[in-house]
């Protein structure tokens, strides 16, 4: 298991291209959450799966250098806080907690629907980072135990 980090060359080459496509698709899904099926949760999972793809193809050591796990933790908690901040801002400007206080724009435009889009982005970030951290932690758990033995 240990002698070869990650999978074969073919997988690695394909992954190198496909990761960005997957991530782009995730971002598309998040940004169009108010127009088409999908939204923050679906897009967030797609982004997490893109990271997961890299981890499975290249191995855990690679991803440690490629991504700053600390930063993922911080994005995870700060995006959760941003959701709350949108709520509090709604209280200040919209008269009620989580009120949709930004202008709604025109229906069917990409930038429209006020806080719905903002919240979709926030949720996407939160879900993407958070779920990847879970898989990362589970993977690291086995690594830790193996080193101990």
């Amino acid at each position: 298991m240990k002698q070869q980090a990650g999978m074969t060359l073919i997988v690695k080459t394909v992954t190198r291209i496909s990761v960005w496509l997957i991530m782009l698709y995730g971002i598309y899904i998040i940004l169009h959450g108010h127009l088409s099926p999908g939204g923050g949760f679906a897009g967030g999972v797609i982004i997490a799966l893109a990271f997961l793809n890299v981890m499975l193809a290249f191995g855990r050591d690679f991803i440690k250098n490629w991504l700053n796990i600390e930063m993922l933790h911080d994005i995870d908690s700060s995006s959760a806080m941003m959701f709350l901040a949108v709520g509090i801002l709604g209280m200040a400007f919209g008269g009620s907690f989580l009120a949709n206080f930004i202008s709604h724009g025109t229906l069917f435009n990409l930038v429209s629907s006020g806080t719905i889009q903002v919240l979709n982005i926030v949720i996407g970030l939160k879900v993407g980072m958070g779920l990847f951290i879970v898989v990362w932690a589970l993977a690291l758990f086995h690594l830790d135990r193996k080193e101990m033995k």
Partner: protein
Amino acid sequence: MTVYLLCFTLFLIGLYGIITKRDLVRIIISSGIMGYAVNLMIVLFGYKNGSIYPIFVKNMPISPQAMVDPLPQALVLTSIVIELGTTAMLVALAVRLFEKYQTFDITKIRRLSG
């Protein structure tokens, strides 16, 4: 009616699994089955014959009367996310239990009794 009952059967299979299985992984799987059944049941309650998804599309006038109920879908979205959280947490616990006891068998994991 038949659909409801089949869905309920799925739920009961999950319940059966949780009660009788002696293996942590099977228990986690059973709780997942129960979750599927409930999610599906809630969406079934919101389906309206001959209607389409509750999303408006540009240049395609659809009457709101011809749409399915959006609220159960919103509820189930929440419930799916919660399900994933439960699964992650149960898996983490099961892995730690395996590390401590070297087994997935719940009959052998019995430090607490009474």
